[in-house]
């Protein structure tokens, strides 16, 4: 569950799917989540936990979630842990805000709360897209957060977005230096109707080649960290080679987003596709039960539409490794039944990794 505790950000990243996508809903949202919404959120997460019998995963997100204020964030964390002792929570931040109060919160709730920073490398790489308001670099603040959180032992994860103009060797050096235990690599958001600046030719494999170069650096020597994208693909390819089938299920993983006004929506990343693309029936968590909204006809229909794959995808030998790609990246004219805009890159990467792993 993505919980938008703040609707604004103190950065202005050029590729941001919230502020530079097709959706403009953030403009009319309360700047921060209000107490009544927090109270309902705690109740509904506890209820959902009992009903689905698995640990809920709550991600504090924004905008920049720490604009809520550390004290208010602590109150929510404490309330959620009190109601759901084994809850899993994380903070996804741009890394510009870090102080002793936040560090205390992360240390105190280490069993339940992880800390993840979005940063794209050292200053030259990061500042291509991730800049502060009025186009000023804020890398010195992010760097200070990386160092302090790493030294405190609370830096869990770093999310990085690919720009093929960056040297993969420099990105690898950043990973070695920054001290996180987990990294993940994201591709710039866009769809067939709105190609991202880093993917203007759908037939090119530049992104796949870039990823392959980073994988070669990563997998050639023992590492203290993991890169989820590569490890997940390696695992899928190994299963494919060994003929191991994972079971299908009647369950479907779905991400719900609670906005600062309490409205419950789909995964917020659909905002890259069109204005209001993540909206469901306009229900609010203050008035409606979250488990009912998760199982509502509107949500089921929406999940179904995003899970249906193109004939090209269902016939592809790499379907299990790819799954059709990130749904937002498959959108074209309102339909998700298309290959990803990164299909050629994925194929390039899968083919190369398969040869390396399985031959």
């Amino acid at each position, binding site marked *: 569950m993505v919980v938008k505790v703040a609707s604004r950000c103190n950065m202005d990243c050029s590729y941001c799917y919230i502020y530079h996508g097709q959706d403009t809903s953030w403009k009319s949202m309360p700047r921060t989540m209000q107490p009544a919404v927090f109270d309902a959120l705690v109740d509904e997460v506890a209820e959902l936990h009992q009903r689905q019998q698995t640990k809920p995963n709550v991600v504090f997100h924004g905008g920049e979630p720490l604009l809520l204020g550390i004290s208010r964030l602590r109150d929510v964390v404490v309330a959620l842990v009190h109601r759901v002792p084994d809850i899993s929570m994380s903070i996804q931040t741009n890394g510009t805000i870090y102080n002793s109060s936040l560090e205390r919160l992360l240390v105190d709730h280490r069993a339940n709360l992880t800390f993840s920073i979005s940063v794209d490398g050292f200053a030259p790489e990061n500042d291509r897209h991730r800049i502060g308001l009025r186009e000023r670099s804020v890398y010195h603040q992010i760097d200070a957060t990386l160092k302090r959180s790493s030294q405190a032992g609370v830096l869990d994860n770093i999310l990085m977005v690919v720009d093929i103009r960056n040297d993969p060797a420099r990105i690898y050096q950043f990973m070695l230096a920054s001290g996180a235990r987990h990294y993940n690599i994201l591709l710039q958001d866009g769809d067939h109707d709105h190609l991202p600046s880093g993917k203007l030719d759908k037939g090119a494999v530049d992104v796949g080649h870039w990823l392959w170069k980073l994988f070669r650096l990563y997998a050639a020597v023992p590492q203290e960290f993991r890169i989820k994208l590569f490890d997940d693909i390696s695992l899928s390819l190994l299963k494919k080679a060994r003929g191991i089938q994972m079971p299908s299920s*009647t369950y479907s993983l779905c991400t719900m987003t609670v906005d600062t006004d309490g409205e419950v929506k789909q995964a917020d990343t659909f905002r890259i596709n069109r204005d209001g693309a993540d909206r469901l029936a306009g229900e609010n968590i203050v008035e409606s039960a979250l488990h009912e909204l998760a199982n509502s006809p509107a949500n089921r229909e929406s999940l179904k539409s995003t899970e249906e794959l193109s004939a090209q995808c269902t016939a592809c030998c790499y379907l*299990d490794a790819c*799954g059709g790609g990130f749904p937002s990246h498959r959108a074209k004219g309102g339909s998700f039944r298309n290959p990803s805009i990164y299909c050629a890159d994925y194929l390039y990467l899968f083919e190369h990794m398969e040869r390396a792993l399985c031959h």
Partner: protein
Amino acid sequence: MTPDFEVQLSPEYLAKIEADLKAGVKLLASVNAFTEYNRGGGPGGSYDRHYDKSTGGITPSSTDNAST
């Protein structure tokens, strides 16, 4: 094999993925196989926008029961 395909994978990396595979297969025997395997949320519960199906995991066959 073209030079571009050539890569020397470390034994440690291969062992790590083999361990992931064994853990995944072991999970198949669990009654919580799907929910455990497909929890999403990234490492340690961290936010990860590839939680859905983009990088593998079990492919859901229907949307009978949505979980958050």
